[in-house]
């Protein structure tokens, strides 16, 4: 095979990624399905390539034609009543087919000017769909989840219902599930997934020694009851809730929302049911006789950015905040791109601009101003706010880690006593007021029946939790699935709309959603179901054969390996070295950070200098690192952490040279290497034993003899090569106190061994 040919192939695939960035490109030789489904085959094409001009947005509609609704699509063309867009069974009489199949550039759809086109395969699919009767279906995500019968597989592999669904799909694709992972790897995986912390050597040994069939479940139960479970689960919620320690925008002053963050951890640890968790955050202030805890929970809707820039126009920013709440609501609870309907009718999904502002109306009642003053006159908590005293912490808000007696103020929700009418904003502009609208939601999801739902945020929460709401439970179980399997059953966990990906296991998604609501929205129960499944417990090793059939491991014929997220990488380093300060909650902290980052970027007002903490505060978990929105912690961003600018429900997972640099040179990793080396050497064992202990601590399994050999040889040569000067520098790394180690040469070489171990791919990966 010549080089030019390879190059050409690569270049073609590159342009596909660059321009289409969509994984729906079928291979050329893909077979047409026997039964063409509107939801699974046709709508994705129409939505992506046609609905922009022939879809829900009335203002953009061309030729007065819409294809997203069956009746409209089947109606005769107005300009030419004899012709039809669709004639069931007859593609050659259906304009839709004729126009996509023609080679006449003046006639062809989509028009060349749109930069969109259909592939030959897609045209064939549409043809076959028309031949089979051109049947429409409601978008899958808008049909409430159905009670599903669990498929029966004859294999003895399944451990719970999840596995039967997975097995059925694997069979269909000609794939086999994998063996259960080795015990040590499984323990590392489940510990990191449930608490974000690695298992200690002692925990590893206990698990290895426990030969009973209940050994794994015992560990799972222990982890689920660990106080660190809440921390682990909170992080994805903090991304979604755009939690940060500063107001954002240019002066980016301090805010105190950390008591709300402490509440989120508490809520997960106490296993608040999802319906309660959601209701308190959306409308805790509207519950009868709300407690201070319920009020605190409403801070969720105040986590958006707030401007302190002098001279801003008050109303422009007030509208901005309400917009942020509305968009967050859409994405977090419904996985719909509400923001698209801010300026015009949604181009793909049934959310009109009017629907948008009806939903907006719920969040538009807050007694607030867009501008409460600049960085000098503003405070860390704009009204409406709530004061938390030490007495509150002693009596009711026991989970708040308040360190001193000074009361703190947090932002909460409270509606104004005066009703504020909501206008449709023309093109989304704050000062272009259109017609007045009342409270409501997109009726295609579920009608907001005001005889059943109160016309306020509490009613909105009830609407979300209604039996007939097709999205709330699916969206949540999908996000939890994503947390454990690296990818949602719906890959686009933030978009269940027409443009989103289709579920890979629709029946499983519905089964999980209905099972979840039937069992009282019990989050821990759901999590336990996932980690107890055979699917989750599989080995992560893959084969060339499996990769060829399913390169993204969509069908889970093995467990997907995943690098730890930003905060958890830090936690891992601290926990394994023994440095971790296990304290929960409290004001955020400022660990080591490269010099000058805040100083060079500041406006000169507010938090101008990064004043690094010392002592215990250097060793708090990653989730407690102070997030200044305009200059987020740099190592976190390198590891795909969120900048907490807006609601995010999914992080990218990249693999970059800058990540290598952080693991090589971040003072936190270097200090951990030194401290762990000392800690192990204090026991006065042989270097082989030391290496084994370090390896088991970091990689969380027994090393292979080959691995010990590599490290031992490395240790021996480094001991010879390390000069006195370098040795003195290495054994001084970090601020943490030193253990008394006499053999400094060995210590220096052992520090290098541990640095190398921290950088092993397997170390910070769930295998």
């Amino acid at each position, binding site marked *: 095979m010549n080089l030019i040919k390879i190059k050409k*192939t690569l270049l073609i695939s590159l342009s596909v990624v660059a321009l289409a960035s969509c994984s729906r490109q079928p291979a050329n030789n893909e077979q047409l399905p026997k039964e063409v489904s509107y939801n699974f085959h046709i709508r994705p094409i129409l939505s992506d390539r046609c609905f922009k001009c022939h879809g829900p947005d009335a203002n953009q509609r061309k030729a007065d034609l819409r294809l997203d609704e069956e009746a409209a699509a089947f109606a005769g063309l107005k300009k030419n009543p004899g012709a039809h867009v669709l004639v069931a069974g007859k593609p050659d009489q259906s304009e839709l087919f004729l126009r996509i199949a023609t080679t006449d550039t003046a006639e062809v759809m989509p028009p060349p000017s749109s930069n969109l086109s259909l592939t030959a395969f897609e045209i064939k699919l549409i043809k076959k769909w028309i031949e089979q009767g051109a049947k429409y279906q409601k978008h899958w995500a808008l049909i409430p989840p159905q009670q599903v019968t669990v498929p029966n597989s004859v294999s003895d592999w399944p451990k719970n219902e999840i596995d039967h669904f997975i097995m059925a799909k694997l069979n269909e694709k000609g794939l086999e599930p994998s063996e259960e992972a080795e015990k040590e790897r499984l323990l590392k995986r489940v510990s990191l997934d449930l608490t974000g912390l690695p298992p200690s050597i002692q925990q590893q040994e206990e698990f290895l020694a426990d030969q009973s069939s209940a050994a794994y479940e015992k560990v799972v139960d222990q982890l689920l009851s660990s106080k660190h479970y809440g921390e682990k689960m909170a992080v994805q919620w903090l991304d979604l809730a755009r939690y940060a320690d500063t107001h954002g925008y240019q002066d980016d002053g301090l805010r105190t929302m950390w008591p709300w963050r402490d509440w989120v951890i508490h809520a997960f640890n106490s296993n608040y049911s999802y319906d309660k968790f959601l209701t308190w955050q959306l409308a805790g202030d509207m519950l009868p006789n709300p407690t201070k805890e319920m009020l605190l929970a409403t801070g969720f809707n105040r986590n958006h950015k707030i401007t302190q*820039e002098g001279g801003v126009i008050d109303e422009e920013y007030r509208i901005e905040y309400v917009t942020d709440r509305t968009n967050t609501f859409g994405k977090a609870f419904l996985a719909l791109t509400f923001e698209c309907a801010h300026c015009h009718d949604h181009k793909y999904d049934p959310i009109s601009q009017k629907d948008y502002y009806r939903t907006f109306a719920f969040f538009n009642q807050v007694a607030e101003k867009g501008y409460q003053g600049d960085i000098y006159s503003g405070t860390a908590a704009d009204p409406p706010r709530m004061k938390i005293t030490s007495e509150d912490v002693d009596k009711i808000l026991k989970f708040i880690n308040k360190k001193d007696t000074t009361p703190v103020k947090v932002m909460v929700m409270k509606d104004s006593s005066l009703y504020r009418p909501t206008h449709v904003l023309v093109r989304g502009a704050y000062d272009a007021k259109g017609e007045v609208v009342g409270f409501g939601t997109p009726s295609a999801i579920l009608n907001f029946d005001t005889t059943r739902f109160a016309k306020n945020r509490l009613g909105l929460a009830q609407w979300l939790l209604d039996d007939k709401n097709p999205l709330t439970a699916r969206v949540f179980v999908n996000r939890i699935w994503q947390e454990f399997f690296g990818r949602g059953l719906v890959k686009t966990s933030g978009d269940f709309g027409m443009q989103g990906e289709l579920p890979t296991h629709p029946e499983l998604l519905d089964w999980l959603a209905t099972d979840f609501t039937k069992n009282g929205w019990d989050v821990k129960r759901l999590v336990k179901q996932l980690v107890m499944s055979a699917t989750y417990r599989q080995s992560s090793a893959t084969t060339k054969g499996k990769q060829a059939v399913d390169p993204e491991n969509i069908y889970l014929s093995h467990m997907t*390996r995943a690098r730890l997220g930003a905060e958890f990488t830090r936690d891992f380093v601290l926990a394994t070295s023994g440095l971790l300060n296990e304290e929960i909650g409290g004001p955020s902290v400022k660990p080591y950070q490269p010099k000058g980052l805040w100083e060079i970027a500041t406006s000169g007002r507010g938090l101008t200098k990064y004043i690094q903490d010392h002592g215990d505060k250097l060793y708090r978990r990653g989730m407690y690192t102070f997030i200044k929105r305009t200059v987020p912690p740099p190592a976190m961003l390198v590891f795909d952490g969120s900048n907490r600018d807006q609601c995010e429900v999914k992080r990218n997972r990249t693999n970059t*040279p800058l990540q290598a640099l952080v693991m090589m040179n971040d003072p936190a990793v270097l200090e951990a290497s030194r401290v762990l080396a000392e800690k192990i050497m204090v026991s006065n064992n042989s270097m082989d034993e030391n290496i084994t202990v370090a390896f088991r601590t970091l990689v969380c399994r027994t090393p292979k003899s080959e691995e010990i050999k590599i490290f031992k040889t490395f240790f021996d040569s480094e001991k010879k090569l390390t000069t006195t000067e370098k040795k003195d520098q290495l054994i001084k790394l970090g601020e943490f106190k030193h253990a008394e180690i006499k053999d400094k040469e060995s210590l220096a070489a052992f520090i*290098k061994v541990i640095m190398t171990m921290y950088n092993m*791919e397997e170390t910070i990966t769930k295998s």
Partner: protein
Amino acid sequence: MANEFFERHLNINRRHFLGKLGLGFGSAALGSLLIPDLFSGKEEDIASLGIPHFAPKAKRIIYLFQNGAPSQLESFDYKPTLIKMAGQDLPASIRNGQRLTGMTSGQAKFPLVGSHFSFQQYGKSGAWVSEIFPNIAKIADELCFIKSMHTEAINHDPALTFMQTGAQQGNRPSMGAWLSYGLGSDNKNLPAFCVLLSRGKGNGQGVYSKLWTNGFLDSIHQGVQFSSSEEPVLYLNNPSGIDKDDRRRILDNLSQLNSMAYEEFGDPEIQTKIQQYELAYRMQSSVPELTDLTKEPDSIVKLYGAECLVPGTYAANCLLARKLSESGVRFVQLYHQGWDQHGNMVGEMPMQAKDVDRASAALVLDLKQRGLLDETLVIWGGEFGRTNYCQGDLSKDNYGRDHHPRAYTIWMAGGGVKPGTVYGETDEFGYNIIKDPVHVNDFHATVLHLMGLNHEKLQYKHLGRRYRLTDIAGKVIPGILA
């Protein structure tokens, strides 16, 4: 048959791999390991890639962002009427409903004020330049002034964000991230998008990392902060006690261990990780070499001014920008803060001008003498303009100006723009555009065009919607193309 199978296999793996990495730094680097000249920029490669969409005029961009909004009326938009009418109120017919910021909306009067600094015409083009920019004045015939820029935002944060990402709100990818995504890097040892920060002495407005964010693109397209200081890139330096040879030995062992993991798991991410460590190692030597400005010849130091040897100054960043760009960095973004003269225009404006005048001109001249100006696009300007009337009371010897989104001036040089051009015109009050307006979206469309990209085709589908730098608007401005 065997070939076909191989191609298909390669294809799947590439797609899988690139789907995770996106185009750019890392993928370009690994691509070039597999096939040495994948991103060499040879014509036939570019053509078959489908991107750039047509022959580019510029290959690289250096954007000298003047953060805080330098006054067009004290720099390049000469308005003698304002001197004549000093102290008189801005006619309502000229203001014509323009909204005001909270800083001047309470003012009873809007007294016009002319430039304290004198203007002269320069070069064959006869461009007007104020006395506080003597070096930029000298290169007037290299520059293309756009006097008719206008924006929608009236406050710094949204205006800066708009200028850099094409949207006022929201976590959209920055210009540099888009170019990294679209065109990748020309240098396998450097990121495609580098950011340099400096601070002037004038009233400042902060910068925010969201200005160089990758937004919804992969983090490989994030702007990487560089400096000419001891640690030019975050986390680049080995700790004391580890030198280059030590690092090499650590990485050799690491690579052996990681290869064992690959054998066991077969996960292609492990292979990528091995390559990324090698790239990090190469950066450790290539970056400090590149950012070391002390070895520059005297002629260069003289050109940029002695300040260029002080890390963190605008001059040092201009020189560093030239070196990065020369090494193939696609997009070098500078930010110089301190241009927000709500008051004390007379005191602050010359200081700010002095910070940037010499080095900005030097950069253009330096690129030219290296034969690089033709393929490098230099952009100079802020996020909006300033009002023609005084903010607060107009005193005899000083004044200030508020934000003005309706008209401002930027200049560009090199890379396919028409040199010695003055494009667009404002009215005699310097308040409204009367000829050839250029909206921020148009500016972005034009810059992408110069880089060989069709702004309507450079798109990325995220959560169901195709996003562009120009969102749903923008048109290329033919009048400034060479």
